[in-house]
């Protein structure tokens, strides 16, 4: 029961041509007879949106306003006729992408039995001509084509504007009460960053000294004082040409683990991705998850358990975990795989694990993953894609080769979680400013939400490494190249992916997950089909889901063929190199 119906792919014929427009597929699933309704906007050129509604957060084409208005009226009539529809729409139906008002309204209409609405001007079975519905619809107080014999709609003459491409210039700041010396510190940091950008190393260096002195007068246990220390160090390191401190894989794992425990960000990402993967795997008996960064495999026990509880029984689950090679003879990937296999066995899920050891994601080749044409593939990338955006010129960033091979696997779903921040801007000062505000919000949340040591201190070290990398490194060494959702949307769209919208059910469950953290301040927000985790109104992590958009192949007869699972996969079984580890399936 996924949010997407492959049979509606016909409408996607123009999807390839409209890479920039947002696909708006929505469906409501629920009730005893689950229906899927899709309303695609793929086949139009870049949309001509009503600028005023865009300011209110709704994307509606001016040319569609009448259509939307009519549908709203029909829905209104239906709800007036039978109030029983309301709880159904509210609790049973799943809502998607409310910004796409046309789709949202249509999907609700499709949820209702078609007998519940008739001509909007003459609600049937309504004896009273002065009933509220009749008055609202037929009162003539809005010039409306469906109600007046000669439609003369009053169209406002405001020229619809494209919504401004503001996202790339967005800088969100959430502050708590600041003392004056905190503000002085921010000033000094900015001035220092600006002098770094100008290449004035000596001024920058003396500012670093000044700031170290300022730090002693500021409360470094919270707020800007805490995060400033890390930025000052990072600037110092940059000036000395030190870049990031080299870290062992082991250290990385320890810090990661504590970051996982200390705050909900990774849990939110895992949880949301698992929900989407579960839905995408519905109806499939052979499924294969490819995890771009296995670490301790913390994401997977929950998925394994959820699959075990599937009404028609669990599928055969293959998990391919990618991770760095282990030093000193250990095989960490295999160890994690064994643990997960043990768990799977205990809940009767047939399970096979393969580890792929690679120091960089771009070293992985699709044939190493041994994807079989019969299985449904989920590619899972938690905070990994941004690492592919950097390179030492004249080489191109590896993302350009990785996204195509992911696409070539024709995954049923690709789940992506990324930091919602713009830390990849070319200007150093811009990057620095964004990072300063992003990490001060993040540290703020750690402070409030996790008083437990040593989790908190180690979690902070985890973040400190990111700061050092953003501030101190360049080229291929700078891997923490976070970019915001809009840029990922555009990039993934160009690479042949289309969004799978996360709906109100996923939103609700993610919100409920947050209530496990006793601190108030966390919230989930919906952003055109994606979910973001926020600390006090500032989005910090964005979770999204994607699917390979079908490509169009014109046969000589002019018939349009669609990609499905049988074509285009580069997954012929090839004898593997010794880098993989095979865990024997629990049941063959």
């Amino acid at each position, binding site marked *: 029961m996924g949010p997407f119906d492959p049979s509606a792919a016909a409408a996607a014929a123009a999807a390839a041509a409209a890479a920039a427009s947002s696909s708006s597929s929505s469906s409501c699933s629920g009730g005893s007879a689950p229906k899927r309704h899709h309303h695609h906007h793929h086949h139009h050129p870049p949309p001509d949106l009503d600028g005023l509604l865009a300011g209110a957060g709704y994307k509606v084409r001016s040319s569609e306003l009448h259509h939307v*208005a009519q549908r709203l009226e029909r829905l209104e009539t239906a709800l007036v006729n039978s109030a029983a529809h309301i709880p159904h729409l509210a609790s049973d139906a799943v809502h998607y992408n409310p910004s796409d008002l046309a789709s949202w309204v249509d999907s609700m209409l499709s949820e209702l039995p078609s007998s519940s609405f008739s001509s909007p001007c003459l609600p049937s079975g309504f004896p009273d001509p002065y009933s509220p519905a009749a008055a609202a619809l037929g009162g003539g107080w809005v010039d409306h084509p469906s109600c007046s014999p000669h439609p003369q709609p009053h169209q406002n003459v405001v020229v619809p504007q494209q919504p401004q491409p503001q996202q790339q210039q967005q800088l*969100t700041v959430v502050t708590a*009460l600041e003392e004056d010396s905190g503000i002085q510190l921010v000033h000094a940091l900015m001035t220092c960053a600006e002098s770094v950008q100008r290449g004035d190393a000596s001024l920058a260096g003396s500012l670093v000294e000044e700031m170290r002195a300022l730090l002693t007068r500021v409360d470094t246990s919270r707020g800007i004082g805490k995060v400033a220390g890390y930025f000052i160090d990072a600037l110092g390191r940059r000036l000395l040409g030190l870049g990031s401190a080299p870290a062992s894989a082991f250290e990385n794992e320890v810090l990661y683990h504590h970051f996982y425990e200390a705050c909900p960000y990774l849990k939110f990402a895992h949880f949301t991705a698992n929900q989407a993967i579960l839905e995408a795997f519905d109806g499939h008996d052979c499924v294969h998850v490819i995890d771009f960064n296995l670490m301790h495999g913390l994401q997977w026990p929950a998925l394994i358990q959820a699959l075990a509880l599937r009404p028609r029984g669990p599928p055969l689950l293959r998990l391919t975990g990618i991770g760095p090679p282990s030093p000193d003879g250990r095989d960490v990937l295999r160890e994690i795989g064994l643990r997960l296999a043990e768990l799977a066995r205990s809940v009767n899920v047939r399970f096979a694990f393969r580890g792929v050891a690679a120091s960089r994601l771009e070293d992985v080749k699709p044939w190493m993953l041994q994807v079989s044409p019969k299985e449904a593939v989920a590619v899972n990338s938690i905070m990994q894609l941004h690492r592919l955006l950097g390179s030492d010129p004249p080489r191109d960033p590896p993302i350009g080769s990785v996204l195509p091979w992911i696409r070539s696997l024709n995954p049923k779903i690709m789940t992506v979680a990324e930091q919602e921040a713009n830390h990849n801007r070319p200007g150093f000062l811009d990057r620095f400013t964004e990072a300063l505000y992003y990490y001060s919000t993040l540290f703020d949340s750690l402070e409030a939400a996790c008083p437990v040591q040593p989790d908190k201190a180690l979690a902070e070290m985890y973040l400190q490494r990111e700061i050092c990398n953003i501030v101190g490194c360049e080229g291929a060494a700078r891997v923490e190249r976070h970019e915001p959702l809009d840029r990922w949307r555009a990039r993934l769209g160009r690479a042949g992916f289309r969004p799978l919208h996360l709906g109100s059910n996923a939103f609700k469950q993610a919100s409920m997950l947050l209530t496990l953290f006793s601190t108030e301040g966390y919230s989930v927000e919906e952003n055109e089909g994606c979910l973001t985790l926020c600390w006090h109104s500032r989005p910090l992590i964005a979770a999204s889901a994607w699917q390979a958009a079908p490509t169009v192949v014109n046969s000589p007869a002019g018939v349009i063929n669609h990609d499905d699972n049988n074509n285009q996969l580069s997954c012929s079984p090839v004898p593997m190199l010794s880098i993989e580890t095979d865990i024997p399936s629990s049941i063959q």
Partner: protein
Amino acid sequence: MVVPLNMWVLISNFKLKYNLLRRPDGTFDRHLAEFLDRKVPANANPVDGIFSFDVIIDRTMNLLCRIYRPAFTEEPQPSLIDLEKPVDAEFVPVIVFFHGGSFAHSSANSAIYDTLCRRLVGICKAIVVSVNYRRAPENRYPCAYDDGWLALKWVSSRSWLQSKIDSKVHIFLAGDSSGGNIVHSVALRAAEAEIEVSGNILLNPMFGGEERTESEKKLDGKYFVGIRERDWYWRAFLPEGENRDHPACNPFGPRGKSLEGIKFPKSLVVVAGLDLIQDWQLAYAKGLEKAGQEVKLLFLEQATIGFYLLPNNNHFYTVMNEISSFVNPNGK
């Protein structure tokens, strides 16, 4: 009388949305509400000459305000940003804004209110502080008022908000729907505590009472709003067991308090002629007048609720100009 099509779509959409969220048992589907609400983050980079940032003004209450300011003229590129830089003008009105939503809906970061606050900054040359107060039914009376009071105290104690002419913060309270109702209560408390508020702006303020007025009977269900929902929201906000003659709902009703002799700010009350609760709003204005308080009533005969959310109608500009004159010292 004609409503622009996109406004009709916007308000109908809200009405539909709201219908899905209110449950007959008095509970509210908060998760679906938050999912459906269109929100925007603050933006410290100026857009159309205005930037915004969020401040947690009280940690223990987790009370957030979004502050909107005109961009600094000397630094068009805000790389050296000083969010709380002292105000540079002789006189700057500071508008403490309470968004609407009948006490249950919306937030300071809702797109419609972010847009409205930005327009207020531009038109009134003011700084706007939008308060993210706690909502019903999870937080009933007096939570929203307490949060409003906290925000007022915070604003009045910010030295960076002082106008240069007299080193004082010139505060105006403004709000629409439930926000207008909050304005009244906070102003009352300010008067009692002798914190000076320069003026109140109430846009389609939410008031009511046990009695069914003519406008309620005549306009029930006609223009997006019905009596039964209004009742629902009062039941959700007022203390359990209370009725609509509670002074929070009906300040000049049988249980209301006299404002005579109180140093209450001057008020601008805007009433839409197609709003079913207009009789209560008109009674409010009258009540202020009878108590000897300064009040200006702006009655817009053909306006519906929410007319101020989009700037494509005359009412919008009429009201914005009135507000601008109201908050700037040369106008009255």
